[in-house]
């Protein structure tokens, strides 16, 4: 079995996020149907972005056009985060769900697997656990330590991820959809349509 020592700190944090926000198939109290809880990729990217900006994750991010809420827009995507999710899935610690959208295009969602839970529970008994857990809670929990629910909210054309807990505490991640400009100089290239193959 894979041990937590074989995972990087970022991978462990990501696994902890999934441990706290997703659930394997279970019957809720007073429920009749077995349900399971998954985290959409956009939520994990929001957490990775916020974590990168606040120095909790060592990830980089870069803007990329992505399908969000049925339309394409720029999202600050962390390729390292996606790569870690893929790695965790390859080790059987995370399950991946392909979810068809209303637009008939597919998005991904993630859930911790039974094996992943075992790894996290073993890790939580270790000395390093407290520090990492505190950092992760800092990202996804409210002041009272409750895991927050997340949803996309659009106000005057500005989309943000809003985290909300049952106690009414809210936190917003706004930078996820804001592109960052850099100063540069460029020259035009019209070579593709030229007759004499000159730039």
């Amino acid at each position, binding site marked *: 079995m894979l041990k937590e020592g074989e995972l990087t700190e970022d991978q462990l944090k990501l696994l902890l996020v999934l441990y706290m926000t997703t659930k394997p198939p279970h019957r809720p109290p007073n429920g009749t149907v077995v349900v399971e809880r998954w985290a959409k990729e956009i939520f994990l990217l929001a957490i990775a972005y916020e974590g990168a900006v606040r120095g909790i994750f060592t990830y980089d991010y870069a803007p990329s056009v992505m399908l969000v809420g049925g339309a394409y827009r720029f999202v600050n995507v962390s390729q390292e985060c*996606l790569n870690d999710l893929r790695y965790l899935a390859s080790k059987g610690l995370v399950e991946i769900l392909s979810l068809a959208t209303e637009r008939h295009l597919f998005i991904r969602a993630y859930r911790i697997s039974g094996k992943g839970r075992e790894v996290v529970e073993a890790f939580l008994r270790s000395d390093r656990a407290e520090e990492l857990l505190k950092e992760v809670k800092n990202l996804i929990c409210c002041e009272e330590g409750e895991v927050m629910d997340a949803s996309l909210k659009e106000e005057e054309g500005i989309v943000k991820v809003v985290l909300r807990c049952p106690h009414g505490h809210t936190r917003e991640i706004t*930078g996820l959809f804001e592109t960052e*400009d850099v100063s540069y*100089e460029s020259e035009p290239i019209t070579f593709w*349509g030229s007759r004499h*193959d000159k*730039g």
Partner: protein
Amino acid sequence: MIRDELEEVFFLKEPIVSIVEWIPFGPHQFEHLISAITTSWFPTMERPSFLTDRREEEPRNCLITLESGMARIMVKDIREKDTVSFTADVYYPEAEGIRQIEQIGVNVFSNGLVICSSKITTVSYRGAKGFQIDENESLISLDRASRIVCDLIEDTSRLLSTLLTPYQRRILNIIYPLSELELYERKKLTFIFTEDLFVCTERGLVSLREVGDVEEILKQRKDARMEIQQLIGELQEVRSTPEAIVLKGLDGFLLILKDGSALIRLKERILLLMLFSSLNLFFKHLMARAWMIWDSLMRERKRCFERAGQADALKVRESLSEMLSNVVLLEDTCVTIGISVRRLRGLVERLCKDGQDILGILDPVQELESLSEKVEQAKNTLHALRTDIEGLIDIITTLVEEEMRQVRIRMDQNLEAQVTMMKIEQVESERLRLIEIFSGGLLAAELMALIIVIYEDLVGPIREFVKAVLTLAVIITFSIFFYIRVIRVGHLPGATEKRSTSGPPSRERHSSMVKRRPTMPLPCMLGQLELDPVLEATSAVFPAT
């Protein structure tokens, strides 16, 4: 400004960034584009002119005020029915502290391929940490390149927006919903061409070619892969050819060229690669849209057969009309794609004869076949969808007509009931009048009897025969008088007045009133039938047959 502290490890040497997309360009749209960029007095090369993404909003105003966010375009080359090339100096506002000298070359091909290209000459590293590099350097880190790519995607959408016809914008908005709004985008492909990829090592910046086999390095170095994926999406394939190393991503390609002239040698192949990739991307979204319309159609069908109400029927009809127009536009787009695909056949055959080289990353012959099949299938699907929508529109129309027929039947029944009621009332009132006359006569007889008794007491007895004749005479006189005053003058003064002022309503007038009924607001059609007083009165006198 970049909020995160970037780890910039990989660098591109003066890369050429091409933002590629496929936009349906029929002959009319192509002519529109030419007229749009040749509006200036100086159409070719002598003097550039400005182009704004704003439209004339108030045609009557002679002076206009525009936000100063424009592009200055200069036509490079126009080949009728083939290509249009122009350059654009972009002066769109940027964030505070950002300075961009942004020049874009645009090539629009009549087959629909649109390429916006820029060679990134320098980028500012002001405030960058972790490595030694000049502030303005011609080596562009992949982290910064990804931000430049986004800037170009955004600005080229803005640049092209006024050059496209409303028809093209409508199609693009169907395929990429909300894309015409700010902050939303169309899906485009990114092609990046560079002569070398550098890596930051302890020795400084080293060419990846010097380090070893690029393909192998990319396999081993996760960080390199991650950085490249920021630019061209999830890495799918790496292929080394004598002319270039081709990295294929989900959202584009990165070509590390052997030398500067490789781009010229590979030009036609790259154009084919661009056309195939952009067409496939467009097709993917076109079909996704077709399935979305299909979903909506199913929902409307359900609503239609649930028959929630007449008001809903109008909404369903409206929604079906919109769907139909979208499907017609998509069908039209498929025809344009079909034309582009047919025109490619010759080029594919010629290029494949010369050996596949970089085209090996996709099999062009197979790709062409697959695209042709896709066009045919899409045409069939859209045709089926259109037939389905038209069928549902017919059903809705029939349902509404049936609903209206039912309303008419209910109205006729209502009128009939009203007429019967009026007849009964008339008979009753006649009867009452007779009783009244009779009672009046009896009263007069009683009065006559009293008068006779008084007379006999005062004067003396009268003969029985005379008494009877007098009584009868009084009764008859009174009855005649009563009949003349009450019956002839009119027992129903209101009704008589109305009839006399508006003239006698004809049977035709009544029937026209009934015919006009269905034009009343739809909610009434399913609700309770309400008759207006005029109609009630006329119906009572002239019942509908």
